[in-house]
């Protein structure tokens, strides 16, 4: 088992610490390694030394003590590090000095749960604005869901953005409300003339209290919430949550349901890429492509509504399976759609890849180096445009991908043009995968009876959403109610990447850089 080998290498790298890797059914395929809080940073450094990626961190406030979890990944092998925390004074060595990717997630945990991260280089709050005070940590079990917010929450004016000084340097502040129809967030640019010197993003505006709202829900209620962590990744988050719950409960999902989940996830990928490729073109004034791709996306969404009951595929999964079966007629319609989309994309792709004015704006814009992408833990198309090939469907395959060959497009220029190409290629890969799934749809039921596990059961869900590795951790409490739900959207790593690629670009190129990355705001803010 790959995870075992990874755990062994960690053990060899830390001879002074007695590591005892073990497995826990709900947390497979990861190996679990428990360490003392004092060894937390040493384990992180050892993982870093082995070239591992920091994937996620979450705190689970269990009834007797709290537990911290960090997920590391290397070459498709996963290790879950865990340590116990004292709920009266929770503190943990920060992993941010080792893994830059841990920076904002640790700050978010500090805000919501009051865990002190020793050695964290940034003392500023992240998800907390002005709706609650520094002494309050709304996700702590003792805190009421309602909180004690002010009647009118003031604007968050006191946040100390990094200052860039120098002749002719000026600051441009944008948001939280932007010029277009997009999610809320704040961007702070330091510029000289048109050139951006730095960009700092500030999120948290779409914080809706997802993790707190999850507590006490049953499986169906949790899935309604998971489907709304990020509206464009509704299948990804719902699937990750399902997987976590099903692993926790030892629930065997029927093969047909797994194939249909794969189909739904690929449909979500195609819909988003179609929309984004059009929007990237639109952001540089090429409205021809924007309209063409907008029409393709619309037809795609209509088929989703006709066959699965929702244009964005919300609420199509359930614990134990999926909610809609696909009949023969539907299968035929999809196969025809796929052929038609391929035929329509070929000439459009040829135009996109060979249009001088487009090339002028997209090539070289917003270049993210492979080193930065790796350091920031970038995933999905963002990573693949900068030379990082990781794809769960291929590297740690879960059903139905375990029986399908998954091609992973890879580019190394890291610019907007590369991100657009990855997306176009990924549409092609998704169409291949869906054709293969439809050609061999297993017979049988599309869901199985769901029975919640006993209190204390926990599970980990990991799926390759359209933005990349999407995670959910679930622990059940009494009566089949969720005691902890911790989702992690891949966008967490997209925003620092956007900041890192922007310097040297001109401000007018920011929208297209942003669109090509397309980090979720709601998915990060929770």
């Amino acid at each position: 088992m790959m995870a075992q080998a990874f755990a062994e290498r960690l053990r060899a790298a830390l001879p002074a610490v007695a590591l005892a890797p073990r497995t826990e059914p709900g947390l497979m395929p990861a190996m679990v390694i428990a360490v003392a809080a004092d060894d937390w940073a040493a384990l992180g450094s050892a993982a870093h030394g082995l070239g591992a990626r920091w994937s996620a961190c979450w705190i689970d406030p269990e009834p007797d003590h709290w537990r911290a979890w960090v997920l590391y990944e290397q070459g498709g092998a996963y290790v879950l590090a865990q340590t116990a925390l004292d709920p009266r004074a929770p503190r943990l060595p920060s992993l941010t000095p080792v893994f830059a990717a841990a920076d904002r997630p640790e700050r978010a945990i500090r805000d919501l749960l009051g865990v002190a991260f020793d050695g964290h280089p940034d003392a500023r709050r992240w998800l907390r604005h002005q709706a609650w005070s520094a002494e309050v940590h709304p996700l702590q079990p003792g805190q009421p869901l309602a909180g004690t917010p002010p009647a009118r929450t003031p604007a968050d004016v006191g946040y100390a953005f990094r200052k860039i000084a120098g002749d002719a340097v000026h600051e441009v502040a944008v948001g939280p409300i932007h010029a277009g129809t997009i999610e809320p967030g704040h961007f702070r640019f330091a510029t000289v003339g048109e050139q951006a010197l730095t960009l700092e993003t500030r999120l948290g505006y779409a914080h809706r209290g997802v993790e707190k709202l999850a507590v006490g829900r049953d499986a169906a209620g949790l899935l309604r919430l998971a489907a709304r962590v990020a509206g464009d990744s509704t299948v990804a988050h719902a699937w990750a949550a399902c997987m976590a719950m099903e692993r926790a409960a030892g629930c065997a999902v029927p093969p047909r349901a797994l194939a249909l989940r794969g189909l739904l996830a690929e449909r979500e990928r195609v819909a988003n890429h179609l929309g984004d490729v059009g929007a990237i073109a639109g952001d540089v004034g090429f409205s021809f492509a924007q309209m063409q791709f907008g029409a393709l996306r619309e037809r795609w969404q209509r088929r989703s509504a006709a066959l699965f009951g929702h244009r964005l595929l919300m609420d199509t999964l359930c614990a134990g399976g999926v909610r809609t079966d696909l009949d023969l007629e539907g299968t035929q319609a999809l196969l025809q759609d796929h052929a038609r989309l391929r035929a329509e994309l070929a000439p459009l792709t040829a135009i996109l890849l060979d249009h001088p004015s487009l090339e002028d704006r997209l090539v070289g814009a917003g270049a993210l180096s492979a080193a930065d992408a790796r350091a920031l833990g970038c995933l999905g198309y963002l990573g693949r445009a900068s030379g990082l090939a990781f794809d769960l469907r291929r590297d740690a395959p879960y059903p139905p991908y375990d029986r399908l060959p998954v091609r992973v497009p890879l580019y190394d220029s890291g610019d907007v043009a590369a991100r657009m190409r990855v997306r176009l290629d990924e549409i092609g890969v998704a169409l291949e995968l869906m054709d293969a799934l439809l050609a061999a749809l297993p017979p049988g039921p599309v869901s199985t009876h769901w029975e919640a596990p006993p209190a204390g059961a926990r599970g980990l869900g990991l799926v390759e959403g359209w933005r990349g590795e999407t995670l959910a951790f679930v622990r059940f409490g009494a009566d089949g109610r969720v005691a902890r739900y911790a989702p992690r959207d891949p966008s967490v790593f997209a925003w620092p990447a956007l900041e890192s690629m922007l310097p040297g670009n001109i401000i007018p190129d920011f929208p297209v850089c942003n669109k090509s990355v397309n980090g979720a705001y709601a998915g990060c803010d929770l």
Partner: protein
Amino acid sequence: MLRILHRVITTGTLTEPLDASASLESLGIEVRRTLGARFAGSFAIRHVDAGSCNGCELEIHALGNPYHDLERFGIRFVASPRHADALLVTGVVSRHMQEALLRAHAAMAKPGLVIAAGACACDGGEFGTSYASCGAVDSVLPVDVRIPGCPPTPVVLLRGLLAALGREAGLTRPG
């Protein structure tokens, strides 16, 4: 260029006439106040995501695709609330967006319609009221038009926007 022209010609016109057979009531659209005929030729909307999951935004984007072509009705999205006749609000109002939403509303010229789109904006949806969320838009601002759905489909959005304009009767083109 020839390839583009060829594609444009072979694509033809995709824009569909709006199906107005379903009544506003049956779609769940509630209209308390409209801007009436004065705005029949041009209606400027400022969208504010006050704490959405981004699902509603995707469907608002779809209003601009060739099938729906929002602008044929004289409705367009503007960048500044100062240029807007209406605020189109999506999502619950997160507490972190409360002040921004109020300021955007205050910046609009009067009468300034407020249109709540989506289950979250209409009644709090899946997120409701909490330490993080003020809940539905009408807990923060008076709401004139409600468009339900999670998210509302583009056709329902379009019907709701036209209803806000008081243009339920003449759905084809502004007179």
